[in-house]
Structures are given as C-alpha cells and as structure tokens.
C-alpha cells in the first residue's frame, strides 16, 4: 500500500458558515497504479492532490503514506517525505524562469544534496531520455508549452519518486502535445511509477487504470 486516506475533511469558515472543500474522502492507492481524478471545476480535485502531496493541510481524518502517519508528522519531516518520494507536475508547468532547462531539472537534486558528478549524470540521462539534450541551455520562455511540460515532468522524475502527482498536466496544451504527454505517463507507469492525475478530459482519464469522480468535495459514488 502506497498511501491511504481515511475520512479526510477539509473546510474553510466563511462567516458562520463552514464550506467543505473535501468531505469524508476515503482512498487507497497501491504502488504501480495510474489513477485519474475527475470532476467539474471546484469539485476539489486540486485540493485533494495538494493534500496527497502534503502541500496542503486537512482538518480531520488520517493519512498514511508508506505506513507513516502524515497527519502526525512535523512540517520538516513531512517535507522530507515528499522530497523523497513525490514528484509534482503542474498545469502551468511552474518552471523557474531564471534557470535553464538543465538547471531546472537539476534543482531538486541540489536540495537533496546530491554530489555534483552524480547530478550531471542524472540530468544527462533525463535530457537524453526526453530527447531535449539540444535544448538544455534554453530558458523556459524559449520553449513551446509541450516542451515546457516535458521539462516539468523530467524535473519531477529526476529524484526518482515513487509517486507523480499531476494537476491537469495537459490543460494548457493542444491535443497533439497532450497525447504525447499522456503516452509518456503511460510508459512511466509501465516502468513502475505510481501516477495520480487530476483531469477534465475523459480521453486522458482513459490512459489510467482507475478513475475516481469528485463532486463538491465528495467522492461521487453514483458513478
């Protein structure tokens, strides 16, 4: 079992009213799964991904990741956990504008204190694998959206995570680029990487092995 969410609630108070962002979410994800989260805008897809990725807190419930009780961990410990095991891919890519392709991919390794020679080898592998060796010295603005997202994925993969969290990874891309990215995810999944993606598109969801539906912060069990 990679991770397990039990009775997760997350809410914000607006005046006297309590607005639930996540309501009684129960979820188990096994290693090697490729899961898609679907639902309309505002249904809580991104919030759920952020909770899984430990970037966001939740108010109630328990969350175990690799048998570690995330809800009981200190901030620093939690950060170490996601640094080690989770890679993020964003809809807006979120590359650092001031860094080149090479440096963007390298950054997570810097924060893990990987030695220089090892870093070089790892980044070179990654560039090679994604066929972007020729673009390694370019800055993000000089790339197309699809290429930027490739870099984003490469960056997420560089620290060899067990889990990739992708929030609408193709939301800003055209259909051809989308297809390439999804093929890539499929390949990664086949290599053993667990993937959870949030998406609007049935097409994209069909690449996954399992789909869950959210509506107003709840799992939509009718589906």
């Amino acid at each position, binding site marked *: 079992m990679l991770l397990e969410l039990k009775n997760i609630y997350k809410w914000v108070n607006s005046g006297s009213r309590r607005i639930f962002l996540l309501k009684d979410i129960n979820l188990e994800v096994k290693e090697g799964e490729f899961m898609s989260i679907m639902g309309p805008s505002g249904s809580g897809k991104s919030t759920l991904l*952020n909770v899984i*990725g430990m*970037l*966001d807190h939740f108010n109630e419930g328990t969350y175990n990741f690799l048998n570690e009780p995330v809800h009981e961990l200190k901030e*620093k410990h939690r*950060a170490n956990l*996601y*640094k080690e095991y989770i890679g*993020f891919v*964003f809809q807006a890519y*979120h*590359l*650092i*504008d*001031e*860094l080149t392709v090479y*440096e963007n991919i390298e*950054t*997570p390794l*810097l*924060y*893990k*204190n990987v030695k220089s020679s090892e870093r070089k080898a790892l980044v070179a592998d990654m560039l090679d694998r994604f066929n972007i060796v020729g673009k390694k010295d370019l800055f993000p603005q000089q790339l197309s959206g699809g290429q930027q997202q490739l870099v984003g994925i490469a*960056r997420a993969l560089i*620290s060899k995570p067990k889990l990739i969290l992708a929030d609408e990874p193709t939301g800003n891309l055209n259909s051809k680029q989308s297809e390439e990215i999804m093929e890539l995810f499929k390949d990664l999944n086949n290599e053993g990487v667990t993937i959870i993606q949030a998406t609007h598109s049935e097409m994209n969801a069909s690449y996954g092995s399992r789909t869950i539906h959210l509506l107003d912060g709840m799992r939509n069990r009718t589906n």
Partner: protein
Amino acid sequence: MIKNYFKIALRNLFKNKGFTAINIIGLALGLGCFIVIAMYVADELSYDRYHEKADRIYRINSDIRFGGTDLIMAVSSDPIGATLKQDYPEVEESARLYSSSGSKLIKKGDEYINESRVTHADSTLFDVFTLPAIVGDTKSALKEPNSVVMTESAARRYFGSPDNAIGKTLETDDNRSTLYNVTAVIKDMPKNSHFNYEFFFSMANIRYTMGNYLSHNFHTYVVLQPDVDYKEFNKYFTDVINKYVMPQASHFMKVESMEAFEKSGNKLEYALFPLTDIHLKSSRGVELGTNGNIQYVYIFSAAALFILLIACINFMNLTTARSSGRAKEVGIRKVLGSEKRALIWQFLTESTLIAFIALICAIVFAWLSLDWFNSISSKEMVISSLIRPEYLAVLLALPFMVGIMAGAYPAFFLSSFQPVKVLKGKISSGTSKNNLRSFLVVFQFSTSIILIIGTVVIYQQLSHIQNSKVGFDKEQVLVVENSGLPRQARESLKSEIAQLTDVKSASFGGYLPVGDSSRSDTTFSSEAVMTESNGFNMQFWNIDYDYIPTLGMEMIEGRNFSRAFGSDSLGIILNESAVKSAGFKNPIGQKLYTSFGPNEPMIPYTVIGVVKNFNYESLRQNVGPLSFILGNNSWVSIYRFQTADITGLVDVVERKYKAMAPGMPFNYRFMDESFDNMYRQEQRVGKVALTFSILAILIACLGLFGLATYIAEQRTKEIGIRKVLGATVTNIVAMLSTDFIKLVLISFVIATPIAYWFMNKWLQDFAFRIDINWWVFILTGIIALLIALVTLSFQAIRAAISNPVKSLRTE
C-alpha cells in the same frame, strides 16, 4: 549550492535591470558617502597620534578672567614649563614654541621669500615630539643660538637636498638680518598635526624678557611620566600660582591674596590639556592653526550613518515590494524540496551580492568625489589610504553587514510563503498597505527633511553674517603688508598710492577687525592705583589719524584723533563695550590708567571719543571692550578704493611697491575676503550639509520611485478595471499617489520639531544669529512634497494612461 545561488542571483539582477540599477545606485551612493565620511572622521581622529609619547604629552592652557574680560588661551607664561619640570618629578620633559613673531622673510639668492610656517622652539622639542631627523642630530640641534632645523621639503627648496642643507646658513630679516646655521633636517611633518612648521629656530634668538609669569605668549608642552593622571596633576597648579605668580603680580598691583583676587570675580587657572584632544576639542585664543570641531565630526558621522541607513532601507523596501514577483519561484522551490533555511540563504546571498557590486561602485564614487570633498573640507585625503588591513577588513565586512541587514527582512518574508497559496497566485504583498514599509518611507523622508531644513538654516546664517552690519565697511578695502619695506619707504609709498584717483583714503595700521590679525590685550584701571575691583582688560590698538575714516567706522561721541590737537598722544578712543566695562556715564574727558611693565609707572589717558561697536572677532562672539591710541604702527597699509578695475589697481600698487623694495615679496589681501575667511568652517559645513541633503533626498526618491513602480505594476489589473468603469487619468494618479503623499506629510510633522531643536542649538554658537523663520519649514515641506510628487507621477501617469484592454488581457 552557493554557485547555484550566485547564478540565479545574477540572472535575476540582469532580468530586472531597472530595479537592479535603482537598488545598486541607491546603495552605492549611501556606501560611497559613508566611505568618504569615514575617511574624513578617521583623519580627524588621527591628529597628533603619531608621536611616540602622544598619550603622555599635554599642553598648558591658561584661563584668566580679569575685570570682566575672559582670556581663554592655548598659551602660557615662559617659565612655567621649566618650573614644573624642576619642582615635580612627574614631569619628564617640557618644551615651548614661540610663534608670536609671525612670519619671517628668508633670503634665497637675491630674493626674500615670506615664510609663514616658522617658529622658535626649545631644544627639548624633539624629546617631546617625534620628529625624526633625516640628517643631523635633533637632540643637540637647537641648543646653540642661531641654529635652525628645517623640514625636508624646505631644505629642497632652499638647498636642493637635505644633505646639502646641513652646515649651510639661512639669512632672515630678524633684526634686519640674522644668520642661522642649519643643524638638522627632519622629515616633513604629517598633515594631521595641530601645528605644522617647516622651520624651527632656536629659542635663544627671540627678543623677549624671560622669567615673566604674567605674560602669556608661549605654547608650552610637557611629557608626564607613564601612569601619571593629568587631572590629579592639575591640582598642583594652585601651589605654582601661589609660589611664583602671585609674588610677581603684587609688584604690579595691589593683590592681597589669591582668595581676595578670586572673590572679586577674577580668575587665574592653568591646566594640562591632552595633546590628542587639541585638534578636535580645543578652540582657545592663540591656537597654532585652525582646529577641527568634534561637534562637526559627530554631525557628519551621524549624517553618514543616516544616509547609509536610508540606502539600506531602500534596499529592504524595494526587495520586499518585489517579493510578489519572486513568490512563484519560492513556491516552486519549496515544492521541489527546498527548506526554508535554504531559501533564506539564497536571498541573503543575493542581497550580499548586490551590496558587493554596490561597494565597488561606491569606491569608484568615493574616488571620483574625493577631490571635490577635499576642496570643501580642506583635507588631502587619497583613496589609496583605504589600502590598510584594518580598513580593508571593514570594507569587506561592510557589504556582508549591509547585505544581511538589508536582506534579512525580505529573506525571511519571502521564505515563509506558503507554496500552495503562491502557486495559486493568492499572495499580493506589494500593495502600499504595509506598515513596515510605510514606517521606512516616513523614516527616509523625515531624515531628508531634517537635512534640508538644516542646510537652509546654515545658509541663512551665513548670508546673515555676510550682510550684517559689522560696524565698519569691509568692502573695497585693500590691505598691503609692509614688512619688506624700510620705515621711510612705507610713508612715501603710502602717500604715492593715496594720490591715485581710485584711492579714496589711506592709513597705516597693525590691528585689523578681521581674523588673522594681531591683537593686543592690556589691563586698564579707572583709577590711578589698580586694585582687583577697578581693573579690566581690553584690546589696545595703536592707529593713526586716518584709520577710523578709512575703515568706515562711526564716531558716536567726541571726536577722532586730529592733527590739530597737540595733546592727542595721551588721548584714547573707546568702543561702547569699553565705556561699559570702565563704568563711565559721561565718558568724554574721563581718565584711564595703564602701565607697560611690572615696574613701569602708570600712564593716564584721557577719553576723547567713543566709536560705535564694531565686530573685530568672529560673529560667534560679542563685541568686547576695545580702545585706540595714537601710534605709529605701520605693519600694513590700508587703502579704501572705489573702482571696478580691481586687478588694475593691484597691478599699479604692486609696481610701485616693487620699485621701492626690489626682491621683497608683495603681500596683499582684501578686507572682505579676510572677513569671509573667518567663517570658512561654517561655509564648509554648509556645503557638506547641502551635499548630504541632496544625496539623502536623491536616495529617498530612488526608493520612492522603485516602490511606486512596483505598486503600479501590482495594481495594473485594478487600474484597468477602474478605467473600464470610467476613472479618469487624474483619478488614477490621485489614487496611486495619496498614500505616499500622506507618508511625506507625516514625515514633515515628525521632522520639523527635531530640525528646529538641532538648528537652534547650532545657532547658539553665534552671538549674532538669525531667528529660524516659520516659512523655512513650510518651504521645506513644500519642496519635499513636490519632489515626492514628481517622483511618483512618473509611474502613476504611466500606469494611468496605459490601455486598459492590454492590461486586462495580459492577466
């Protein structure tokens, strides 16, 4: 990792060129200013410290009050140094300087050169002060009469080289002609010395009746044994006065005892004064040069620190304001696994890097401005003096300190962003509603306003001095020195020049109502027998018949000296203060008595006139009592002229002078220039204050400009929406400016009382001073407001006229 920080820091700097430039220029100006002032302060503090015994050397100061006149002097009597050494084992050595004879003419080839850096000194001078010899032995150099020690550069001027000078003779105009043997050549004295001579003549050659405890004409220095407390030692002076001074005084007037003398409001005090304090803390009568002022050192240091602080604040402000631009980067880095600490380091690296670049610019800036600063501060500082291990250490530490100080707040602020929030674009930290930022802007503008008010007041006071009625007419007066001319020639030259059509009036004189002129202080009594109660001191100047009209002084009672009266040789003219000191109701016809030595008879003078008070000392002091008698003092000739062609007139006078005295130097000055020289320090301070205010306001404006830019950028979308909803350009500009204008107004309210207090304190130094006008504050407020408005409107207008469609689309 550090490499990565540097890389991203550099790229960030290049990406935001405008921001970087504002940041670096602001910081560089602040740092440069700091460096120059630090050099200045270090130089001021270094005076006289190069002497090996510097911490044990003291000067004997005298404080005398007699008949209501205070004499606060840097000189003491001729025997007192030797007496101390003889009576007290605590005194290791003593040495005197006698500079009262002023400059000397020294013969070089066929020509006489007027040398002003000359003095007579005891042979022990070189045991007290560290003045190393190049050739010769200073220990014995001044033991014999007719010997002279000169500095290296003087030796080069007269003999080509120090080695060549030894054993040669110098001819001076003492007693028409005196020859001195050069017995030693010393290194040039360092600039940072409170006295700075090129020639030391032996003390045996002065014409002075030695052993007189009552006349104070010698600068006396003593070296105390190690570990002697000079304040304790000062207690011995009471014994010295009772044992040596009082017996002499009782010959001269009826003094019962020291107690009676002090009871009648008089005072006689001696005290040791530390050598290293002389330059900054001593401004007595008869100092050996223009000393500095510790107050100005404090003021300058404070101003430099404040400017540095303003610059650092800018840095903080701009960096924090820009933080929203960096928020996304922070968010991504956190998601990628960066710890808070790593981010703090990254931002500190960045600010330190900027500080380093700014430091380099600052050194260049300091180097470029040093000449100019030297000229207004009359120093000779060079940038290479920074190359000393302790200075370099400070210089290198500075950017770290500044970088950490200025970068700490942005670093902690930025690194504490919540990644999820920033990635969703929820952080908007660049708005004007930030209390810390408001506080910083208020601080900057308060400081700037204080400096501006200070500058205006200083300049007002200076112009008040220049234009105030000083009781004589200083314009269009030429003063020519006669020291090179024989007596008879002086008279014929004067009458020849008086014939010129441009010359309205001519007179001889020795005493002038401006600085750098001789003074003569004498004790008078209103009765034939002098007692503690009827005696008083006053200036006693001998002048000729034409002196008063030539200098444009005004008689308010009685008459001037006149050739028509035979008895005027015992007549005396008083100024108003002297009438008051003597206690006369109807001064004309009253008698005043004085004598010219301990055993001389009392001479009665009859008051024939009263002259309106005129300022003969600086306007810092009130006009003291002064008297004129008729005499034949012809050290200088004074000409009142009326011409537009001043250089032409000077040429004519010089030609006539040279014809009378071939080979003699022609020295002249204008009365109004000499007058201005008395206020050179104030003028300097005025210029420095002006520079500081301009710098401070410039840096503050750079900061304001940067802030306005970012706030305008932040609110682009809001501005777009408002315009779509019908807001005019004026509305938008007003909206963007109001917050800042409010801050400037608050600064004004804070700054005004502080500035008033400080400037009032400064003005207390002047007996003749202006009142601070309310309009100075209003004017300064308006200036600050206008400058802020202009700065802001650049950005505000640009933001306001932008096309809303564009700004909304880019969102």
